[in-house]
């Protein structure tokens, strides 16, 4: 799906990416949505729809890897009073989709999971998902804070940064996440006619027959 709007990731620098109409080499366009093939049928050519369906039906990670991704995702974005957790929003499936769509993620994530399991085996004699929650947090604390992580943990830091990025964008681009963050999108104005107090001021009223016909909104 290399097309559509030029995309620059939201780093500290957030350049006004949408402003760049001019040609800039070596940038890839990316537009990714998660969901079922039916949901993706909007604005897709048959070829695109075929590829989307293949990606969604496809599976890259094994069960153990999916379980590890789900555990990490919920540590990164847990449920709180405002919205559900990363897995509630379907983040593990989203990450599986992304690595099929963008294969450059495959090795770093698969390798990162192995690295994590190995570290946990050494410390706790169990792989990451088999550890207790406290042990998992102890391990995550070693790799979740890039500026204070120990040098020997840098591999894990790189992995966790990827997991944090993909979990966040998977979560906040889901319906649950979009509602959480309050993205409104473009909405048409609604005009309900002359306000009642103004009508009262001039002793006027709407014609009730026309009111039903012309001043009516579905939402």
């Amino acid at each position, binding site marked *: 799906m290399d097309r559509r709007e030029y995309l620059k990731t939201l780093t*500290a620098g957030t350049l*006004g990416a949408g402003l760049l109409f001019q040609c800039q080499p070596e940038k890839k366009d990316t537009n990714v949505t998660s969901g079922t093939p039916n949901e993706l049928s909007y604005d897709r050519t048959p070829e695109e729809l075929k590829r989307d369906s293949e990606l969604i039906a496809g599976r890259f990670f094994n069960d153990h890897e999916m379980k590890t991704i789900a555990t990490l995702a919920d540590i990164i974005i*847990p449920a*709180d009073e405002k919205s559900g957790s990363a897995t509630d929003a379907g983040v593990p499936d989203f990450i599986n989709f992304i690595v099929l769509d963008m294969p450059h993620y495959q090795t770093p994530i698969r390798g990162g999971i192995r690295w994590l399991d190995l570290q946990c085996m050494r410390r706790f004699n169990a792989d990451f998902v088999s550890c207790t929650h406290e042990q998992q947090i102890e391990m995550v604390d070693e790799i979740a804070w890039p500026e204070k992580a120990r040098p020997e943990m840098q591999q894990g830091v790189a992995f966790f*940064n990827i997991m944090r990025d993909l979990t966040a*964008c998977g979560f906040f681009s889901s319906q649950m996440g979009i509602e959480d963050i309050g993205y409104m999108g473009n909405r048409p104005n609604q005009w309900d006619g002359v306000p009642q107090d103004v009508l009262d001021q001039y002793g006027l009223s709407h014609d009730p027959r026309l009111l039903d016909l012309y001043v009516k909104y579905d939402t």
Partner: protein
Amino acid sequence: MRMPGYGFGFGIQNLNGKFPGRNGEKKEAGGYGASLKDDYRYFYGATFGLAGRGEAIAREDNYCEIDPTTVDKYGIPVLRFHYKWSDHEIKQARHMKETFKEIIHAMGGEITYGAEDGPENNYGLETPGRIIHEVGTTRMGNDPKRSVVNSYNQAHDCKNVFVVDGGPFVSQADKNPTWTILALSMRASEYMIDQIKKQNIT
């Protein structure tokens, strides 16, 4: 505010350790959990960016020529470009930077990126050719010795050749060239019809 999509929230570890959060205090960069989740909400829509585009002025010593030693994969010689920024472009970039800073300060914002540009890197001006539209090389002009086409996009050397793409541009405008190409083409077409009727060109 952008609709959250792929790339949303990437690199939050470069952001959430640098600036005070909701409670006015800085915290450790990166992290996870409820506090991180709230950071995404807190920083969403809080960033603002500007990128500048200016006009590269027409300069005779900026030119391209056929490279005598390099060919492409079809064996066709490639172009070799000689292009340098003049003071004019560098001053435009400096002016843009200063204006951006003023705007951001007036908005009550804090500059997080790009403020370090200065004379040593031409105020962030990109290398020539980095962000471009491909225009020029068959430049328009009245003097056949110094230009390829006349003001009707007609070649000085050959009356029935018209160049109606971006070639006749003498400078790199700060805007997309398509509308100007269309306008020039329309003028060239009208001229062509007129000249054919007068049997000046065949």
